[in-house]
C-alpha cells in the first residue's frame, strides 16, 4: 500500500520532471559506492512509468542568474561556470538601433555623461542608496541585461523555466522587488529561488563555514558564514569603486599638464572634477594597479606560526630582488580621454599607491576611521573578533576572498598578512589603545598580571586582562563536560579533525558555481517565490521567515501539491534573509 501511495504522489509533480532529470540520480547512487556508505537502493523503475514528459514546459534546466553591481552572470544549473557574463555599460543603455559606437570617428563623450556626480554610474546596475533611484530604470536594465544574456549566451527561447537568482542578502528590498518584478513579468519563470552569494561561495569551496571577504564594487563586505548561515556581516566603502576613484586621482596628479597647472590639489578637493574617463581609469586599475606586500615583512618572519612557511620565504626573496629593480622599473601609460591625449611614464612602484589608499590608508591611525570606512584588514580582524569564539576558530581558517578586488595582484596576500599580524600582536582582545600596549610591552607588568592576583588597583586591571587571555587559551585546552547535545551532533560527523584556530585562506570555485552546485543537487532554497503569488501580491506578500513553518513546507512538498507550490494557492512564502516589508 505504501508502494502505491508513494507511486501516486509523483504524479502530482510530473509536469516538473522530465526524462533528463529522472536520469540524473544514477551517478548519485554510483557515487555513494566508493564512499562506502553502505548499500543504497537503485533508482526505481516506477518513476519512469509515471513520468510522462510534458511538452508544455521546456526541459527542466534551471537557469542561474547571479546579479552583481556591474555584471550579470547566467548559466544552467550543473555547469561549472556561467555560460555568459553581461557587463553593464553605456552600450547596454542605448536605444535599439543606435549604432553610434560603430560610426567612424565616434568617441564616447564621457565628460557629458559623467556630469552630476554620475562618473561611472552607467556602469552600475544599481547603487545601494535607494533614495532617488528610479526603480523602473533598474527594472529595464535588468530586463535588457537578462534578455541579452539569454539570447546571446544561453540560447534559450521564452518558454518558462525555473530560475535561481543569486542576490546579496542585504540588498535593499525595493531593489530586490524591482529585480523580481522584472524577472517575473518579462520572463515568466514558474518559480524564482533566491540564494545568498556568500553561502554559495562557501558551498563552492566545500566548507560549511567560512569568512567571506567580498572585495566588491560598491563596498567590501566581510561575512561570517557558519553552518551555511550568515551570522555576521561588516562592511566598508573600500571597494572597487574606491579603487577606481583613487586610480583616477592618482593618474590625474601625474598627468604632466595638470601638474604644471598646479591642479594636483583640486583633484582631491570635494567637488571632484574628473579629468579622465571612467573607462580608462577602470582599465588602468584592472591592468596595472597592484598591491605591495606588507611592510611588516620582518616581523612576519618571526611570527611564523599561522602562516605556511613557503610564502614568507618567497616574500623575503622578493624583497631583496625588488631592491635592485625598484628604481628601474617604469611603466609607459598613454591616456586618450584627456583632450589632447597624454602619455607619460610612471615608476612601477608608485602604481601600488591607489590600492594602498583605497584599501588600507595606512597613513592614518586605526582610530581615525569611521565605521563605514575601516581599512580592509581591520574590517576582517574586527569581524573575526566579533564572531563567537567557536565560530571564529572555524571561520578564521576558512577565509575566502572574492569579488573584483581579489584580482588586484598581491591584495589577498597583503590582507591576509596584515590580519595575521594583527592577530599575532593583539590576540583576540577587543581592547586596544596605549594602556593595553603598555601593559603588553612591559614584560614586568604582564608577568605579574598572568601570575597570581597583584595588589592595588593596577593589579585588578591586570587580572582582568589575564582572565580574558585565559579564557581564550582555556577554551582550546579545557576538557569538555559531556554535553548530550554536543555528543549527538558529533555522532554522525566524520572523525577526522577539522582545521580550526589557524588563519588559512581557501579557494572557492565561485559564487555562481556554488549556486549551480546547490541547484544541481536539488537543495531547496528557503526563499522560493511562485510567479502567481508574486504577481498577485508583489513583495508585500512575503511572510516573515519565522512565520513559515519549514516542516509544513516539507510536508506540503511531499503531500498532494508535490513540488507544485502555489497549486494550493494559499501557501505562504518568505523572502528568508532577504527580509520583509
Amino acid at each position, binding site marked *: 500500500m*505504501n508502494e502505491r501511495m*508513494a507511486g501516486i504522489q*509523483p504524479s502530482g509533480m510530473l509536469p516538473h520532471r522530465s526524462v533528463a532529470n529522472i536520469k540524473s540520480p544514477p551517478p548519485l*547512487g554510483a557515487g*555513494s559506492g566508493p*564512499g562506502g556508505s*553502505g548499500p543504497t*537502493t537503485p533508482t*526505481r523503475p516506477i*518513476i519512469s512509468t509515471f513520468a510522462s514528459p510534458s511538452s508544455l514546459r521546456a526541459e527542466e534546466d534551471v537557469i542561474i542568474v547571479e546579479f552583481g553591481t556591474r555584471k550579470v552572470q547566467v548559466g544552467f544549473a550543473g555547469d*561549472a*561556470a556561467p555560460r555568459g557574463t553581461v557587463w553593464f555599460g553605456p552600450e547596454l*543603455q*542605448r*536605444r*535599439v*538601433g*543606435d*549604432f*553610434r559606437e560603430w560610426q567612424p570617428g565616434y568617441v564616447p563623450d564621457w565628460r*557629458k*555623461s559623467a*556630469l*552630476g556626480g554620475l562618473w561611472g554610474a552607467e556602469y552600475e546596475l544599481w547603487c545601494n542608496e535607494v533614495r532617488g533611484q*528610479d*526603480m*523602473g530604470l533598474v*527594472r529595464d536594465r535588468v530586463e*535588457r541585461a537578462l*534578455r541579452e544574456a539569454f*539570447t546571446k*549566451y544561453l*540560447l534559450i*527561447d*521564452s518558454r518558462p523555466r525555473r530560475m535561481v537568482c543569486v542576490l546579496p542578502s542585504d540588498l535593499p528590498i525595493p531593489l530586490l522587488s524591482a529585480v523580481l518584478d522584472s524577472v517575473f513579468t*518579462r520572463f515568466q519563470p514558474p518559480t524564482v529561488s533566491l540564494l545568498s552569494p556568500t553561502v554559495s561561495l562557501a558551498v563552492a569551496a*566545500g566548507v560549511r563555514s567560512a569568512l567571506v571577504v567580498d572585495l566588491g564594487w560598491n563596498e567590501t563586505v566581510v561575512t561570517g558564514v557558519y553552518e551555511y548561515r550568515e551570522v555576521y556581516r561588516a562592511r566598508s566603502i573600500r571597494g572597487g569603486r574606491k579603487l577606481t576613484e583613487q586610480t583616477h586621482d592618482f593618474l590625474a596628479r601625474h598627468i604632466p599638464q595638470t601638474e604644471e597647472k598646479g591642479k594636483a590639489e583640486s583633484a582631491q578637493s570635494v567637488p571632484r572634477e574628473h579629468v579622465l574617463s571612467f573607462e580608462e581609469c577602470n*582599465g588602468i586599475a*584592472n591592468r596595472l594597479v597592484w598591491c605591495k606586500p606588507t611592510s611588516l615583512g620582518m616581523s612576519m618572519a618571526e611570527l611564523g606560526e599561522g602562516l*605556511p612557511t613557503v610564502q614568507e620565504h*618567497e616574500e623575503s626573496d*622578493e624583497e631583496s630582488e625588488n631592491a635592485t*629593480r625598484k628604481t628601474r622599473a617604469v611603466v609607459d601609460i598613454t591616456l586618450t580621454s584627456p583632450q589632447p591625449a597624454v602619455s607619460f611614464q610612471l615608476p612601477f612602484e608608485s602604481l601600488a599607491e591607489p590600492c594602498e589608499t583605497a584599501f588600507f590608508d595606512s597613513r592614518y591611525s586605526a582610530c581615525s576611521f569611521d565605521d563605514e570606512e575601516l581599512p580592509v584588514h581591520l574590517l576582517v580582524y574586527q569581524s573575526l573578533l566579533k564572531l563567537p569564539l567557536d565560530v571564529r576558530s572555524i571561520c578564521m581558517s576558512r577565509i575566502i*576572498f572574492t569579488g573584483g578586488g*581579489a584580482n*588586484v*595582484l*598581491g591584495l*589577498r596576500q597583503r590582507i591576509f598578512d596584515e590580519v595575521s599580524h594583527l592577530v599575532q600582536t593583539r590576540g583576540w582582545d577587543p581592547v586596544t589603545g596605549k594602556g593595553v600596549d603598555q601593559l603588553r610591552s612591559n614584560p614586568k607588568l604582564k608577568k605579574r598580571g598572568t601570575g597570581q592576583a597583584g595588589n592595588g588597583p593596577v593589579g585588578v586591571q591586570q587580572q582582568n586582562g589575564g582572565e580574558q587571555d585565559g579564557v581564550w587559551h582555556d577554551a582550546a585546552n579545557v576538557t569538555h563536560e559531556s554535553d548530550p547535545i554536543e555528543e*549527538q*551532533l558529533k555522532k554522525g560527523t566524520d572523525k577526522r579533525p*577539522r582545521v580550526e584556530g589557524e588563519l588559512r*585562506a581557501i*579557494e572557492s*570555485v*565561485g559564487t555562481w558555481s556554488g549556486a549551480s*552546485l546547490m541547484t544541481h*543537487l536539488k537543495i531547496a532554497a528557503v526563499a522560493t517565490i511562485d510567479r502567481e503569488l508574486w504577481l498577485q501580491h508583489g513583495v508585500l506578500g512575503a511572510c516573515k521567515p519565522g512565520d513559515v513553518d*519549514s516542516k509544513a*513546507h516539507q510536508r506540503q512538498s511531499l503531500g498532494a501539491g508535490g513540488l507544485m507550490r502555489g497549486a494550493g494557492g494559499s501557501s505562504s512564502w518568505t523572502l528568508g534573509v532577504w527580509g520583509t516589508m
Partner: protein
Amino acid sequence: MSPITPYTYFQCPCSDSALFRPGDGSPSSPKNRDFGDEDGAFDPRAPRANYSLYPLEYLLYCEDCHQIRCPRCIAEEIATFYCPSCLFEVPSSNIKSEGNRCTRSCFQCPVCIAPLSVTSFETQPDPNLLGAQDHSAAHHGGPYVLNCSYCNWSSTETGVKFDKSNGIHGQLAKQRNGGTTRLTAKERKERRKELVQSGGSAQGSDHIADEHGIDMETQFANLKHFYQTQLSSSTSGGSGFSGLGELGFSSPTSLSRIMSIYTGGGSLHDKKSKSRLGNMREALEEDEGLIVANLDESAAIEKLRSEGLEGTIDTEQLQNQPPNLGEPHLHGRTRFTSELRPIPYLLRTKRSKRCPVCRHIISKPEAKIQTTRFRIRLIAGNYVPSITIRPLVLPGSSGFIQHPDALLQPLRPIQYMLTFKNPIFETVKISLATPSRTPGRFASKVTVLCPQFEIDANTDVWDEALKDDNRRKRKGEESGNPHQQPEVGKIWERGRNWVSVIVEVVPASLRVDLLEAAPDEEGDEEGEASEKPKVKREVDRGPLREDEDLLEIPMFVRVEWEVDAVGEELGSSRDKEAKEKRELAYWCVLGLGRVAQGN
C-alpha cells in the same frame, strides 16, 4: 541618436503598462515624474525611454490582435542553432552538453575578434620555436597554429600548438597555455573510475591533479562528487544543508522518509533523523574539493613589473574571453596577454516569434541556415504608417539648403515636412499630438500645422496609373504652385498613399544662463500659474549633458481606419454596417538633429 538624422523611433504600446503602472512608488522618484508632465506626455530624454523605443524596422505586428509587437513583448521559439562561422547546424541536445560555443574549429582572435585560421606551423619561420620542436615538424602538416590574419596574433604567443588541423576545439581543451596538457572532464572521470576500481582513492588527488594544481573544472567536479556522496549517505532530516533538500522521489533517503511518514512512525522518523544529524561534513581534501589558496602572487607582480601595460589585456578583451576552466583560479593573473585563449564562436539561433497573447506566429525563418529568408514575417512597417522627416525647402525661398548633418540654429524657426505613408489597403485617419514644448531643460517649441488628416489607401499602383489624370491634376494644384506657403490646418502635399504636413520648430537655446528666464516667460504666457514657482526653484544650471543638445519631439500618433468585418457573428447581424473600426495609438519620437551650441 541615430546616425541618420532626422530619424523616427516608435514606442511599443507594451511598455506603457510598465511605464505608467500605478503602485510603482514612481511618484516619489523625480525621474518618473517627467512622464507625468503635461498629461503624461512621453519624454524621450528620460533614461527609461531608451528601453522602450525602437526603429520601425525592429517592430513586428500581430494581425489577430492588431497590435505592434516589439522584441520585449514577443514569445520566441528556437528553430535552429548554428555556428555563424562555419554555418553548421548544432543539434539542441549539444547545447546542453557541449556548451554554447562552436566545438569545431571556429575561433575568434582574442585580441581583435577577427576569425582565426588554422595554419601549418612552417608557414611562419620562427627559428627559436622551430628549434625547440622535437618531433617530425619538418614535414608539412606538422604542428598547426591558430593565426589571426588581421592583427597577426598567433596561438604560439601563448604556447599553444595543435597536432591536427581539424577538431581544434577538442585539442585546445586538452592544452593549457604554455603547451602543457591537461585532462579533460571525460578523461578525469575515467581516471577516477579506474582509481576507484583499484581501490586507491587516497592517492587519487595526486593522479588527478597535475603539477599545475587543480583547475576549476576539476574542483567543481570534485565538489559535486563529494556532495553527492555526502548527501546520499546522510539523511535529509535536519542538518542545515539538506534540510529541505532532496525532494526528488528518486532518492532512497526520501523514500525511506515517506515510508516512515506512512507507517505512522513519527517518533521513528524523529529518532532516525536525530541519529544521523550532521552527517554531512565539509570537504577536507583536495580530492573532495577543498583547496587552500595560494596567496603568493609575487611572481605575477614581477611579471607585471617587467611587461608593463603591453603585457596586459584591456577590459574589452577580458570580457570577451570565454570562462577558462582549465586553470586554477587565476584571480588577477587573467590580465596577462599570456593567458589569452582563442575564443570559440558563440553559436547563434534562428528564432520564430509568436504573439504572446494569441500565440499566432508572426515571424518564422526558413529552417535552412544558409538562407536568410523568412516564411512568415509580419513586420510593422506593413501595417503602421511610416514617418519620414525632411526639412522643408520652399522653392521660392533663398537657395539655402540645409545639409542633413548641419546643426540647428537655436531660436530660428525651421519648418519640417512630415510625410506619412500608408501601407494598408484602407483609408486611414491620423491624429497627431505633440507637447507644445519638448520636455527637458531646453524646451523647443513645436507646432504641427495640420494635426488631423486622412491618407488614401495603398491601392494598386496600376489602378493609380489608370486614374492618372485625376491625380496629376491634384498634384499640380498643390505643389506646382511655387508660391505655396504653409498654412495652418492644411495638408502640404498629398499623393497616392501619402500625405505631408508641416511642423514648425523653434529650437531652444542651449545657453545655461538663459535657462531661468525662458520657462518663466512661457509660464506667464500660458497662464500656468502653478507651474511657475516650481520651475523657478528647480532651475538646473549644470553644464550640458550627453545628448541634451539633441532636438527630439515626442509625438502621439493615433491611426484609425475601418475594415470590413470578418467575424461571422458580426456579418450575420449587421450586414449593412459591416465595417469595423480599428485604431492604433502609440508614441513616436522624431529626432531632428543637434542644436548648435554657443549662441
